[in-house]
C-alpha cells in the first residue's frame, strides 16, 4: 500500500463514485468543487477526513466526497462531529449543514459546539429557505418573504447566523458568496488551519425556491461595490475603483470615499480578525452596505480537546490506577472465608 502521507492528491481523489443529484445551477456544486480543490492543499491524509451532515439539500454532501462520512439526522451533526473529534482528535472533521438544519432544529447543538470550541469546521449553506421539503421559510428567511408556508409573507424575524455564532462565542467566523469559488477554497483552507471551531457561512443561491436571494450582493456586476472582502491586517477598502472604505464614527461604522473630505487610506479601519473582543466583528457581521465577506473573526483560544487532553494527562500522572483491577480492589473491600 502506498504511503498516503507523501501522496499528492488532486480534487479527483476526493470525488466519490456517486452521481451528484442537486438541482442544475445550484451553488452547492460550487461548494463541492471548492472543497474537493481545497482538501489537497491542506496537507491532511484522505483517510483522516470525516464529513458529518444533518438533513437537507446540503447534507447530501458527504455522499459525494470520497472520504469517511455520515449523513445523519436533522440538526445533530455538530453533536455527532463532537463525538468523532473527542474519540480521535487527529481527524479532520467537517460539519455540513444548512440554515434549517443548524438554525432551527439543530440550534442547540450549533451554539454548544461553538461555545465548546471543538477543533472542527462547519460549512453553513445559507439559502434562506427550506429546499428539500420544497420551499418553506427558514429561520434566516426575511420578514415579508413569500414562501409555501408564508403565502402572505413571513412574519418571523430572522436570525443572522454570524451574530448568533458570535453570541455563542464563535472564535472563527467567515462569510463567502456562493459564486466565488476561489475565495471559498482559500477560506476552507484557512478554516482547517485554525485550531478551534470554524464556522463558514456560504451565501448559497437556491435556483428553485429562493432564486436570487443574495443577488444584490453577489451578482458579478455589483459584488465589488457591494461586498467588502476583509483580510487580517489589511485596510477595509472596497469598490470597483478600490476607493471606498470603512471608518469608525462614534460607535458606528461609516462608509467613506477616498479622496473626499481629505480621506486617505491611513484613515480607514485595519481589519484585526484575531482580536479577542468581538465588538468590531459583530459590527462587521451586521453591516449590510457593504456586506462583509472573508474571515471576519479568527481568535485563537484553547480547544475542548486540548483542555480534556491536559486534564487526562494530569489525572493519569497522579493516579495509582492503571487497570480496572486496581480500582475494583481499592478502598473498602473485605474477605469472606
Amino acid at each position: 500500500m502506498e504511503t498516503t502521507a507523501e501522496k499528492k492528491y488532486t480534487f479527483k481523489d476526493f470525488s466519490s463514485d456517486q452521481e451528484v443529484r442537486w438541482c442544475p445551477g445550484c451553488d452547492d456544486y460550487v461548494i463541492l468543487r471548492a472543497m474537493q480543490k481545497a482538501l489537497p492543499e491542506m496537507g491532511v491524509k484522505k483517510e483522516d477526513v470525516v464529513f458529518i451532515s444533518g438533513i437537507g439539500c446540503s447534507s447530501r454532501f458527504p455522499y459525494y466526497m470520497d472520504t469517511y462520512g455520515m449523513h445523519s439526522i436533522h440538526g445533530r451533526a455538530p453533536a455527532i462531529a463532537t463525538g468523532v473529534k473527542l474519540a480521535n482528535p487527529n481527524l479532520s472533521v467537517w460539519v455540513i449543514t444548512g440554515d434549517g438544519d443548524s438554525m432551527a432544529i439543530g440550534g442547540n447543538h450549533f451554539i454548544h459546539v461553538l461555545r465548546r470550541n471543538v477543533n472542527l469546521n462547519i460549512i453553513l449553506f445559507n439559502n434562506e429557505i427550506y429546499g428539500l421539503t420544497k420551499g418553506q421559510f427558514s429561520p434566516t428567511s426575511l420578514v415579508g418573504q413569500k414562501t409555501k408556508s408564508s403565502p402572505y409573507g413571513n412574519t418571523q424575524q430572522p436570525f443572522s447566523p454570524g451574530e448568533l455564532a458570535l453570541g455563542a462565542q464563535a472564535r472563527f467566523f467567515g462569510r463567502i458568496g456562493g459564486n466565488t469559488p476561489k475565495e471559498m477554497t482559500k477560506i476552507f483552507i484557512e478554516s482547517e488551519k485554525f485550531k478551534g471551531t470554524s464556522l463558514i457561512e456560504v451565501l448559497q443561491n437556491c435556483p428553485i425556491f429562493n432564486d436570487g436571494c443574495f443577488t444584490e450582493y453577489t451578482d458579478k456586476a455589483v459584488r465589488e461595490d457591494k461586498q467588502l472582502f476583509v483580510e487580517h491586517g489589511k485596510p477595509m477598502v472596497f469598490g470597483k475603483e478600490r476607493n471606498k472604505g470603512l471608518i469608525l464614527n462614534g460607535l458606528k461604522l461609516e462608509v467613506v470615499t477616498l479622496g473626499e473630505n481629505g480621506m486617505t487610506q491611513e484613515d480607514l479601519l485595519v481589519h484585526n480578525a484575531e482580536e479577542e473582543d468581538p465588538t468590531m466583528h459583530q459590527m462587521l457581521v451586521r453591516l449590510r452596505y457593504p456586506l462583509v465577506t472573508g474571515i471576519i473573526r479568527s481568535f485563537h483560544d484553547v480547544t475542548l480537546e486540548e483542555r480534556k487532553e491536559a486534564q487526562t494527562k494530569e489525572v493519569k500522572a497522579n493516579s495509582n490506577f492503571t487497570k480496572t483491577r486496581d480500582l475494583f480492589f481499592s478502598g473498602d473491600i473485605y474477605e469472606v472465608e
Partner: protein
Amino acid sequence: MIDSKVGQKSEVEILEAVIIRFVGDSGDGMQLTGTQFSDTSAMFGNDIATFPNYPAEIRAPQGSLYGVSGFQVHIGSVEISTPGDEVDLLVAMNPAGLKTNLHAVKPGHTIIVDTDAFSRKNLEKAQYEANPLEDGSLDNYRVIEVSMTSLTKEALKEIAGLDNKSIVRSKNMFALGMVYWMYDRSTDHTIEFFKKKFKSKPHIIEANTKVLNTGYYFAETLELIPNAYTISPAKMEPGTYRIIMGNTATAWGFLAAAEKSGLELFLGSYPITPASDILHELVKHKHFGVKALQAEDEIAGITSAIGASFAGDLAITTTSGPGLALKGEALGLAMIIEMPLVVVNVQRGGPSTGLPTKTEQSDLMQSLYGRNGESPVIIIAASTPANCFDFAYEAAKLTLEHMTPVILLTDGYIANGSAPWKIKSVDDMPEIKNNIVNEAKENWHAYDRNQDTLARNWAIPGTPGLEHRVGGLEKDRISGNVSYIPENHEYMTKIRAEKISRVQNYIPDITTEFAESGDLLVIGWGGTYGSLHSAVKQVNEEGYENIGYAHFNYINPLPKNTASILKKFKKIIVCELNSGQFANVLKINFSGFEFLQFNKIQGLPFGNSELTGKFKQLVK
C-alpha cells in the same frame, strides 16, 4: 428522656435477618446514615440489601409529609435478596417520618423517635391532631423516646467553630450510634469515613465522632435498650467482596469491557434522575482514558456517542425514560448504520416526568418499539445491584460482536440499591471480539457481513483505503450507498431483524429455579429478581414445592428455549412493575399459553407478602 414501653429483655436474641428503616427530613442525612450502617454490616460479613426512598425535591419544606426521606437496609446471616418490606426497627427523626412509615413496622417491634422533633408545629405539618407519643396510638409497638437533638447539642457544646445548623444536622449520627450498639456493630468504619470525608475540617471529624460515640454510649450506659439482637455473618461464597451500588456496578462493567476489548470508552450523557450516578462515576476514571461529554441535551448525549462509535470507541449513553424518548430518532440512526452503541435506561416511574425518584419497569415497550420504522435492537435487563456489572459488560460485548445498538435496562430500585459484590477482575470475564477491519482489501464493502452473526464490518476513520459513507437513508445491501430499490428495502429490513434474532445463538438458555415443572411458573424480568426470588423461595420452604421461577435478563431476543419451559407448568404468572408489558411480549411470541399477570404500578418494588399470598392462592 427514654422510655421503653415493652419492657426489658436481658438475653441476646440471635436473628437471621433484620430490616431497619431510617426516616427523617430530606435534609436529615438519612441516606448517609443508612449507607454507613449497611457498609459496616457488610464488612462484618452480613449479606445486605438496601433501598433508598427519597423525594424528588432536594430540600422539601421541613417537616412535611412529602419531604420524608428514607433508607431501608436488610441485613442477614442468610442470603438476602431484597431490602424487605416489613420493618423490625424504625428510626424516625420527626413526626412526618413516623406518620408515613408506621404502616411498615411489624406490630410489637421497635420505633426510635427524636422527641425533640415532636413539637406542635411539626405535629401539625405531619397532620397529627394529637401527639402519637401520648395518645396511645403506638401501644402496639416498642417505642424508644430519645431527646436526640438536645443530647446532640449537649455533646457538642465544647467543640469550637460549630454553628447551630451543623450541630443539629449531626443528630443523625446519634441515631446511628444507638443502632450500632443495638446490633453489636463497631463504629470504626464510620469514624474512618469521617476522617476521609472531612480531611480538611478536623473540627467536623471531631464533632461527628463525638455524636456517634455519644449515641453509642447512650444506648449502652442507660441499659434501657437491651443488646437484644446479634446477626451472625452470612454464609457467602469465599472471596474478596465490596459493597456496590447498581449504578456504580453498571459504570464498572463498561470500564471492564473497554479494558477487555482494548477500545477506549466514550460516554455521552445528559443528567437525569436516577441515571446520573453512572455519569458521576465514569467521569472520575480519566486514568483509564475514559472520555465523557456532559452534553447539551439527551439527543446530543446519544449523537456524540454515535460519533465516537463511528470513530472507533466503545460508546455508550445513559439516561432514564424521558431521555430514551428523546433519543429515539438517533437510536434509529445507530440501528440503520449498524454501529455499536449501548443505551442504558435506568427506568423510573412514567409517563412524562412521572415519578423521577421511584422505580418502575414501564419502559419495556418503549425500548422495543419506541422508534419510527422497523428498528429492532438488542434489549437486556440487569436484575440485581451487583449483576448490573455483568449486564453492562454483556451489553458492550453484544454491541461490539453484533454491530447493533443494545439497550440495557436497569431501574431506580437496583440502580440505587447496594449489595455485596464478589469482586471480578477483567481476567474472569469472557472474551470480547469486534468486527474492526484494519486494512483495505479488494472488493471491500461497508456492508459485508459476518456469515454467522450478520454483523457488518467496522471500518474506522484513519484507516487508509476504507473511506466510505453511512447514513440514515436506506442502504444498498452491499455497498451501503443510498438505495431506493423496493426489493432492497425489504431485504435490508429483514436482514436487520434477522441479525437480532440470531443473537439467540449467543445468549444462555432460560432456566427455572425451585421446580423444573409443576403447578405454577412465576416469571419475572429485570430488577424484580430479589423480590420474586425470595417470595418463591419462601413458599417452597412452606411446602409449595410445585412452584418454579424463571427470571428473564434477555428480552430481545428471548432465549431460544423459552417455549419449552412454559410447557412444563400448569399455570404461568408474569409479575412486573407495570401493567403487563412483558406479559404482552410473551403473548405475542408464544401462542397457546395463558399468561396470568401480577402487576404493581405504585413506584415501589413488590412486597413479599403480596407475592406469596398470590402464589399460594393460585396453587390452592
